[in-house]
C-alpha cells in the first residue's frame, strides 16, 4: 500500500489530462488539414480551418475549443508563412479563442441555433471590424464578405456535425 502512494505522487499528468492533450493535438492538426478543404464561394475559396475548433468547443468544452481554435489558427497561418504577419495572427488567434468560448456558452444557455447566430456574427462581422487599426477601413471592407461567408460555413458545419455525432457513444 505504501509504495503505491509514492507512485501516485510522482505522477504529473493524470490519464484524463493526457486524453485532453491528445484531443487538442489531433484537432489542432485537423484545423490545418481543414484549411486544405477548399469550398468554392462567390467571395473566393473558403477553408474549413475553424470548424474543428468550434466543434471542439461544443463537444469537449469551452477551454479545449479555445485552445484548439487559437493554436489551429496559428498553425494554419504558419503553414502558409503567416500571410498577415505574426502579430496580426496572434491577435486573430486570441479573438477566435474568445468566440469559441462564447459559442459554447450561448449553446449551454440558449441552445444551438442562437449559438450559431452568435458565432457567425462574432467570427464574421466583429472579427472584420477588429482589423480596423491594422488595415484601415479598406482592409475591413475587403475582408467582411470573406469572413462572413467563412464564418457561416464553419460555424454551421460544426453545429450540424455536433448534432450528428452526439447520439453515438463517441462524445
Amino acid at each position, binding site marked *: 500500500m505504501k509504495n*503505491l502512494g509514492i507512485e501516485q505522487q510522482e505522477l504529473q499528468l493524470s*490519464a484524463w489530462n493526457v*486524453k485532453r492533450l491528445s484531443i487538442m493535438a489531433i484537432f489542432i492538426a485537423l484545423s490545418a488539414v481543414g484549411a486544405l478543404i477548399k469550398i468554392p464561394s462567390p467571395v473566393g475559396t473558403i477553408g474549413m480551418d475553424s470548424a474543428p475548433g468550434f466543434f471542439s468547443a461544443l463537444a469537449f468544452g469551452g477551454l479545449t475549443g479555445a485552445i484548439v481554435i487559437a493554436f489551429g489558427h496559428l498553425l494554419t497561418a504558419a503553414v502558409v508563412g503567416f500571410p498577415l504577419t505574426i502579430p496580426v495572427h496572434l491577435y486573430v488567434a486570441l479573438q477566435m479563442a474568445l468566440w469559441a468560448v462564447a459559442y459554447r456558452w450561448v449553446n449551454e444557455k440558449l441552445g444551438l441555433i442562437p449559438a450559431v447566430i452568435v458565432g457567425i456574427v462574432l467570427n464574421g462581422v466583429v472579427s472584420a471590424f477588429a482589423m480596423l487599426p491594422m488595415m484601415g477601413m479598406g482592409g475591413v471592407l475587403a475582408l467582411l464578405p470573406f469572413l462572413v461567408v467563412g464564418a457561416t460555413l464553419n460555424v454551421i458545419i460544426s453545429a450540424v456535425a455536433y448534432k450528428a455525432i452526439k447520439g453515438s*457513444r463517441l462524445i
Partner: protein
Amino acid sequence: METLENEKSQARAICLKNLSYRYPNAVEPSLKNINLDVEKGKFFLIMGSTGAGKTTLSLCLNGLIPQLLEGKLTGWVSVAGKDVGKTAVQSLSKVLGLVLQDPETQIIGRTVEEDTSFGPRNFLVPLEEIKQRVNQTLEKVRLQGYNDRLSEELSGGEKQRLAIAGVLVMEPEILVLDEPTSELDPVGRSEIYATLADLRRKKDLTIILVEHSSEELIYRADEVVVLNQGELVWRGVPSELFRNLPLLRQWGIKPLPVSQIGWDFYEKGWITLAEIPLDIPSAEGLIRELLPKYGRWQGHLQGQAQRQVQVPGQGFGAGQRKDGLFQQELDLSKKEIAVQIKDLNYQYNSDQTALRGINLMIEAGDFVALIGQNGAGKTTLAKHFNGLLKPTSGEVIIEGMNTLKYDTSDLSKTVGYVFQNPDHQIFSATVEKELEFGLKNAGFKGEEIKERVEQVLQYTGLERYRNVHPFSLGKGERQMIAVASILVLKPKVLIIDEPTTGSDWTGVQTMMALIRKLHTAGTTIIMISHDMDLVAQYAKRVIVLKEGGVLLDGTPKSVFSNEQILIDSAIVPPQLCRLSFQLEDILGREPFIESSEFTAMFESREQSGCL
C-alpha cells in the same frame, strides 16, 4: 489475506480475480467474472468472436481501464505483483507493454528513432543509454538502419513492427498485442510471429496475443483462452481446442482447413479425436495412411482422379465432354464484358510507378479476386474501375464507359466500391439515413428510395438497427452498413477492398454469403483480399499483382498450383492447396481447394468395394 494473495501472484505474470467491467454507457457488462492466471514466460493466445471482450480485457491489464475509460469495474487485477487498480498506467508500462490494434495512431514520433525513444525519454533514461536501447530494439524487430526514416513513409508491416518496438524499448516483462497483423499480407504476418518467437526465446518475455487467425500460432502458443460475450469459456492447450470443431463453431473461431478433413474422418470413426491433424505433414500422413484402407482411388490413374472431383458422380468420358461443353458456353458469354483495361499505366505524383502495362478483360457476372502483397497495387488498380484514379496512360472501359470521360459520381451508379474502413464513409445519425444518402445523390425520389432501402435492410439483415446510430454498433455491423449503403445503388459491378479484415469467422461467413448471393444474382464481383482460404473458396478467377503488373491470372486452382512463384511474391497458397502439393503423386498437378474435395476421395468406398 491480501498479502497472501500478493505473494502468490509474485510468481505469476498476470493474475485476474473475479474481474467484471461495464463501459460507462453500456447496458451489459463487457467482461463477466473473469479468473485467469498467467505464469511467467508463457505465450498465451486470446481468441473469441467480435465483441467478445478481448480488447477490453487487454485494456484492463495495463490499467487503461479504469484510469482512462471510466465505467464499472469490480474484481482484482495484478500484473507482475503490482495491483493494477492502484498503480498509474504510466508506471505499469515499465512491466507490461500493450500494442494496440491500429499501428497508425501509436506512432508518436516523426522519425523511427524519435518514436522508439519516446518511452525511455519519459522515464528520464540518459541519452547514451537511450541510443543504445533504441538500436538494440530496432534490431530485434528487424528495423535496424531505419533510424532516420520518416514514420509516415513506412509500409504497413514496418509500421506494425515499429509499434512493437515502441513498447519493447521500455523493456517490459510482459507484452500484450491486440490483433497486430490484421492488415498484413501472409508473409508480413509470419514475420511478426517470428519476431515474437525470437523475443520470447531471447528475453523470456511473457506474451499475450489477441488474434483471429491461428494456423501458424497453434504450435507457438502455450495456451489458448477463449472469450465469449465477456465470459471466459475455455482455457487449455491450442491443439485440444482446434480439434474440437463444434466448440470452435459455437464461439465463432475459424477452424483450420486440415482439421475439417480430420473431423470428417473422426465422425466416420476412422480416427480418434487426438489424431485429427492440425498441420500439413500430419494431414498428409493421415491421408496416405487412410487412402489405401478406405479411399476408392487406390490404383486409379491420376488424371482420372482429378476429373472425377470436378464433376462428381460422372464417369471419365462424361466428365471430359462436359468440360468441352463448358468451354463453349464461356466463348458465348464473352460478348458481355464488364471491365476492359488496355495498356494501363499509373504513376502517383511522387514519380513512383504504381501500375505498369496492365491489360485485362473481366466478363460480366464473374467473381474476380485481386491478390498480391502489401503495396502490389491492388487498391490502385481497383480505384481505376470507378474513376477515382484516371490512367496516366492507357484506358479503362467499364460497362462501355471510358473512365476518362465520366466523373466518379456518374460511374457510382454502375460501379459500387466498398472501402476497407467503413468509418471513412459513415456520417449519418441513423442506419436508415446512411443508406438513403447514396440514392439521393443519384437523384432518386420518395417512394423509390424507401423501397430500395427497405429491400437492402432486409437483404443484409440490418433491419433491427434501422434507427440506431451507426457508431453505437460494432465494427462488423458498420462494415455491413458500408456494404449496404453501396448495394442500394444496385451496382452492376461491385468492388470490395478487404471486406473481412478484423472480422471474426462468423462475420466473414455472413459477409461472404451476402457477396455470393449478389454474385449469383448476376453482379460482377471484384474482391481484394489477403485471406487465401476465402479467395480459393469463393472466387472464380484469381489475378495476382506484383509490383504493379499482372503476375498470374486464371482459375483459383491453376493460380494456386504455381507455389514457387506465389511464395516469391509473398503469397502463401491456402493450406489445402499446400496439402495437395504434398500429395501430388496421388492427386496430380491440380490442387484441391475445398475440404469436401478431399473427403470425396473417400466417399463412395462402399460402391467401389475397396473394403
